């Protein structure tokens, strides 16, 4: 490498020579430093500014915390882990640029990041082209299985469908309001739910679908509509895929217009402990959320994690939430896979990951599946006055995540299998790879 450099220098003009020397000196300095302590670099690709900062900043902190814990245990393969944090600023194209920067310039071995589906879709081509690994920690609409991506959040069958089942069986709900923010996750989830409800014999007139723009703040009309829809003599529930900031004014309006959970319960898929921290939860008592993790779940792993997290952040009130747990599981799985193949090489780690098991924080063991999704338990929690959730129902065991929804005509024959078939969208009817999707 050095001889190559001197050769290059000889060919350079005098002016560039000066710059190159400076670069060489810097490079040598970096080289000797790296030799003193070789590290494995871990990329963190979460928005620290802009609209999504509200949710994603915590996930950045989570990865830093996990790296810190791992380094205390001696790192991985005898090397320390080093976080490389970038800020894609809630700007979807910038996600792709920052991902490229992480992989090519910073030479990270793995990236933990993204929140919205559109940001994930934006970085996908980069991860494919440069063959790196992305761990994606948020519940999403499914209909995707990529070789370079590991989905540690819930697929629709691990969150939406069990929640609807609960309402149907325990609350005897007959009429449904599907309310969501107008973008890909709510639209796809509601399409899946609508198909599922109809397959259970719910009539079209008993389903009301409503979309609102991002950051919608005037909910008077919609809440009044829900009230009206709910007064048709049949038990009514609201399934909410309303995202981010819009939830606070929505719940405030529900509380003010006196819609109680015992009359019309709202089950939300995007409202967790973190979101509730900004609301007075007393009027919301009994409204529901479906997640794979709640801070209030009592298990030794969870109690240990919450304590360590609050000590790390020096904030005894800091809450934990579901996507954080997804990062905990994903990080643990990556560490185990790297230790198994004794290398951080992307191809080797990708092949090693399916089948790896890691403890989740609710007392079970999650497993990475061949479709790059994981097995998770599903919990339904009711909002309590203290801003936490009280688990009122849970699935008997762990639910394996479906990459492709069984409810939609376009995807019910597809499976993702990166172990046997080496294919993300294998059609089980035609026995061919590549039915639909990317």
């Amino acid at each position, binding site marked *: 490498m050095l001889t190559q450099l001197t050769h290059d220098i000889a060919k350079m003009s005098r002016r560039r020579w000066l710059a190159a020397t400076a670069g060489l000196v810097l490079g040598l300095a970096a080289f000797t430093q790296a030799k003193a302590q070789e590290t494995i670099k871990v990329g963190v690709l979460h928005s*620290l*500014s*802009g*609209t999504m*900062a*509200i949710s994603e*900043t*915590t996930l950045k902190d989570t990865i830093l915390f996990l790296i810190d814990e791992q380094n205390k245990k001696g790192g991985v393969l005898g090397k320390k882990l080093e976080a490389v944090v970038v800020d894609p600023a809630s700007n979807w194209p910038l996600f792709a640029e920052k991902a490229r920067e992480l992989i090519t310039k910073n030479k990270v071995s793995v990236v933990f990041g993204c929140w919205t589906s559109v940001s994930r879709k934006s970085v996908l081509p980069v991860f494919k082209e440069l063959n790196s690994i992305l761990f994606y920690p948020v519940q999403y609409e499914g209909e995707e299985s990529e070789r370079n991506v590991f989905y540690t959040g819930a697929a629709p069958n691990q969150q939406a469908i069990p929640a609807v089942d609960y309402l149907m069986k*325990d*609350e005897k709900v007959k009429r449904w309001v599907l309310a969501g923010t*107008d973008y890909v996750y709510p639209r796809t989830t509601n399409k899946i739910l609508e198909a599922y409800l109809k397959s259970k014999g719910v009539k079209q007139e008993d389903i009301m679908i*409503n*979309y*609102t*723009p991002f*950051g*919608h*703040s*005037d909910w*008077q*009309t*919609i809440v*009044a*509509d829900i*009230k*009206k829809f*709910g*007064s*048709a*003599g*049949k038990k009514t529930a609201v399934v909410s895929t309303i995202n981010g*900031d819009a939830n*606070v*004014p929505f719940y*405030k*309006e529900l*509380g*003010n*217009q*006196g819609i109680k*959970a*015992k009359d019309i*319960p709202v089950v939300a898929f995007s409202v967790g402990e*973190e*979101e509730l*921290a*900004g*609301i*007075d939860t007393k*009027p919301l008592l*009994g409204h529901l959320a479906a997640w794979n993790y709640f801070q209030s779940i009592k298990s030794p792993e969870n109690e240990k994690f919450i304590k360590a997290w609050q000590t790390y952040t020096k904030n005894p009130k800091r809450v934990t939430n579901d996507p954080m747990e997804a990062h905990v599981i994903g990080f643990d799985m990556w560490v185990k896979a790297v230790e198994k193949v004794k290398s951080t090489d992307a191809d080797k780690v990708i092949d090693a990951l399916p089948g790896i098991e890691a403890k989740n924080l609710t007392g079970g063991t999650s497993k990475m599946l061949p479709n790059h999704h994981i097995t998770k338990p599903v919990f339904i929690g*009711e909002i309590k*006055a203290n801003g936490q959730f*009280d688990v*009122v129902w849970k699935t008997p065991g762990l639910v394996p995540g479906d990459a492709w929804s069984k409810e939609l005509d376009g995807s019910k024959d597809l499976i993702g299998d990166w172990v046997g078939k080496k294919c993300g969208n294998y059609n089980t009817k035609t026995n061919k790879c590549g039915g639909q999707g990317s």
Partner: protein
Amino acid sequence: MSATAFDRLRAAAFSLLLLMAFAAPAFAGAFEDAVTKFANDDFSDTAEAIDAVAASGNPLAFPIISALNDERLFADPESKKVFIKQADDKIIDAATGAAVDKLPDGAAEVRLNNRLRRAVDTALGSLTLMSPDPAKRISAAQSVFKSHDEAALQAVDEALAKETDKTAKAAFTEARAAILLFKPDASEADKLDAIAVVKSKGDQEALALLTSLGSDQPPLIAKAIAGAISSIQGNLALWSMVQNAWYGLSLGSVLLLAAIGLAITFGVMGVINMAHGEMVMIGAYTTFVVQEVIRTRYPGLFDYSLFVAVPLAFIVAGAIGVAIERGIIRFLYGRPLETLLATWGLSLVIQQAVRTAFGPTNREVGNPSWMSGAFELGQITITYNRLWILVFTLAVFAILLAMLRYTALGLEMRAVTQNRRMAASMGIATSRVDALTFGLGSGIAGIAGVALSQIDNVSPNLGQSYIIDSFMVVVFGGVGNLWGTLVGAFTLGIANKFLEPVAGAVLGKIAILVLIILFIQKRPRGLFALKGRAVEA
């Protein structure tokens, strides 16, 4: 009285006493068993316990169920004992009523879910029908109306016979009607009467009750039900127009509040101030800080926190506004593109600064008690926070208008904005007036932030969501005219709220934007264009 008769009486009394002595423990045993079930931490056991306790007739039934409702019922899973924490923090044993020193360590609240909360409501309803407080009787009657539980009929009849309060009487009559409608063996005449009562109630609950009756009714009753339903629906449709108009006014007041400061900085001064939204956000954060201080130091004053926050937000945002004008904008007068870019950059800087100082997550700003909840006006629900915001907005508007019209500063402001050189030659310090005008606009944006913190998120992004709407209102209403801003805001609010039920929230917003673009093509100067030489200056 003869001796034999006396003896017989004595024997009877004795046997009665004996009977009571045996019966009472058996009775208490069933009650205690039911109470013990609360300790099982199982939702179906709790449901059984609620029913059994409510039906027991035991004097402890009401304290137990109301404690359950208020999360004051505790159970110890070890000893299976159940405790009530009374309002005065004293603890009693729920099964016996005996006082207990303190809760055992393992005791935890008895958990409820929505199904159980409904059961508690029903139980409380039948237990409080005879309460001395008319408000409690009314809410009890309402919960009976909802549950239309046949078992409550006798109690409702008794309560109705004794009732003297007019509202409570009406509520009981409605509850009775609801029960009769669902009672399979009630006579046809009774049912027809009941339908008439429910029909005259005429709200959404009445509609829900009638529609849930189903279609398998005798023809005469089915016809009466159908008639009542269509009459209620017709009535509600009318009310929904009123409701839309109210929602429109309320949305309009929020738009006006957000835009009113911009009407000064952009409308009167002509500065394209992209950091206007951030002034609103700073006002909201000022409210947060004020509430935090009040919460920790003087919790009793919480209801007055907004009265402290309003002047403070005006001062903080106004001071920042003056600093911005002196530091940046005064160098950029007459260069709209540079002003736009500079203030936009500034808005990002302020956002990130707040994000660093307060964190990226939402901050909780509480509603004072007088701004929470709602009241019914006919068939529409009016929430207090929206009502107060409307009143507040109109007050701010009136004060601002009076200030511009009657104070010296207002006169100078109008003079400078209409003809700067003439004003300067009359001895007005134009640069001082510029700074004060910009400060005034920013301060009013800060006040808007106090009000908006009551209905929206307090997060660093708060301002961004209002900036487009604010510009829309000012441009639509006519630049440089406060009345135009007022009319523009309410027009847009009402149009939006009438479009929303038809087109949906997303399409409704798009439709409004398209309409504004078309309108601006026709009248480029907005609704109320300024006329005269000032326009050309």
